[in-house]
């Protein structure tokens, strides 16, 4: 295993030092407990937005802290949810008197740790609402699983709910807009290669040279099944394999306006992501979907894994308006 790290035990803290050095003019970094907070937080009268989760998905979540998006992010260890003391301190740090929204990806650890933090904050008299993201169609949504995982749509929720909070919407309204984004978004991902966590030093699953893993999560978990690739049309095969279940699940219907996110898992070059995007645009057009907004790049990653995920979000005028609103974060910036 070769990685650009120093001490494997200090990866998260060492990366935070880099974020502080690079963006200290805009962000405040705390190490005990670990959190990244907008330099001007709390913003009086504005609903605060806190997210967090295991590290290894950068730029999610710390790269999305700033005006128009998150007020604070709590990084856990690699692929491990943060602890309640982090979210509790972050919640207090960003409460401008209008309440705080927690944006939580649906993983058992994240849900349990955020629940404990929300209990602590409420005991202090801070109003907390939670938006749970669970957009991964690779996972069966039944009583017999922990429910669908939160993946690509989380980026869109953080942007759109962040814009609603910046526009002065109430705690209730910000949470509802975020939930609406989650309800209208679906995602699915795949891997060409596994990833290696610094602590384990081992690949998280095995793949033959001519195999891909379909329906992966973002923590190196194996997917739903392995599939042989078809030389000469790998990108179109993958785009179809991921988009079909997404389109059928919501369902997305002919005439729908959508936002399309083609997201890299960390180790796939942008040139390949654009090849996938071309296929997504073709398939969307075949289904009568109009891609009105798009995002192509590495936004919710899985360390150095090669592969991609696709997210579609059904748009309306309100969601498009908040998507276009100014945002100024290390990972996403326009109009500001």
């Amino acid at each position, binding site marked *: 295993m070769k990685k650009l790290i120093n001490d494997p035990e200090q990866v998260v803290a060492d990366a935070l030092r880099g974020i502080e050095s690079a963006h200290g003019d805009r962000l405040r970094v705390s190490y005990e407990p670990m959190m990244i907070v907008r330099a001007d937080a709390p913003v009086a009268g504005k609903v605060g937005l806190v997210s967090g989760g*295991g590290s290894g998905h950068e730029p999610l979540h710390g790269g999305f802290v700033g005006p128009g998006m998150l007020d604070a992010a709590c990084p*856990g*260890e690699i692929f491990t949810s943060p602890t309640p003391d982090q979210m509790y301190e972050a919640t207090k740090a960003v409460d401008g008197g209008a309440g705080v929204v927690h944006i939580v990806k649906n993983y058992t*650890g994240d849900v349990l740790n955020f629940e*404990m933090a929300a209990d602590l904050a409420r005991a202090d008299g801070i109003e907390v609402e939670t938006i749970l993201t669970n957009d991964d169609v690779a996972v*069966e949504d039944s009583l017999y699983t*922990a429910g669908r995982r939160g993946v690509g749509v989380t980026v869109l929720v953080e942007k759109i709910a962040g814009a609603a909070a910046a526009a002065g919407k109430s705690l209730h309204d910000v949470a509802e807009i975020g939930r609406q984004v989650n309800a209208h978004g679906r995602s699915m991902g795949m891997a060409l290669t596994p990833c290696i966590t610094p602590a384990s030093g081992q690949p998280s699953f095995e793949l033959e040279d001519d195999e891909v893993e379909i329906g992966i999560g973002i923590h*190196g978990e194996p997917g739903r099944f392995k599939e042989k690739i078809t030389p000469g049309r790998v990108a179109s095969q993958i785009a179809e394999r991921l988009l079909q279940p997404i389109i059928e699940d919501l369902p997305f219907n002919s005439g729908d306006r959508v936002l399309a996110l083609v997201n890299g898992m960390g180790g796939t070059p942008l040139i390949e992501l654009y090849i996938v995007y071309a296929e997504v645009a073709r398939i969307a057009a075949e289904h009568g979907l109009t891609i009105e907004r798009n995002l192509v790049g590495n936004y919710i990653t899985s360390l150095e894994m090669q592969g991609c995920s696709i997210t579609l979000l059904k748009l309306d005028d309100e969601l498009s308006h908040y998507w276009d609103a100014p945002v100024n974060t290390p990972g996403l910036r326009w109009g500001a």
Partner: protein
Amino acid sequence: MTIDRDRTLRWMELFAESMAAHRQELVALDTAIGDGDHGTNMNRGMQKVREKLEAAASEQTDPSAVLKTVAMTLISTVGGAAGPLYGTLFLELGKGLAGQSEIDLPTYAAAWRKAAEGVQARAKAEPNDKTMLDALLPAVVALEQAPDLNTALRASTEAAEQGMLATTPLVARKGRASYLGERSAGHQDPGATSTFYLFQSAEQALTS
């Protein structure tokens, strides 16, 4: 035969050693059906517990105080699902033993029952969901049914081990392993495994 402060401290010492010794095993089990961090997280948490119990030795006046320190330390250092779940377990166990410096078997077993109920409520899981409960619940029953403390400690380790081994054929219905569906069968649950080590270290430390 009772459990006192020093034996409780010894228990936590042995559990910390066990988590260090079995870190790679737990990582391997969790890599197969989860995200591979259980061994690392439990080891990090228990080494912090060891430091904390040493640094604040004078505050650990009775078994309940020791277990509350363990709970708060795990909640703030472990993360994942294991942090809140083991945190809840030790918090409830500590509550059940509060105010007593010498713990007898009925008190010990009753506190474990409360702890198991607390974990079950937090996890929203049922038996056979392939979680730590599958080792925990049979071990608690064994404590409740034993005639004396030494027998109870032995029986609870055996029951936890049986429960742990019985998770292998199960299809996971909670936690990250549940995303694998049928593919989660054929692997032993990492959470049930760390719970077995907790009972094993209890037997080693608390048997007189």
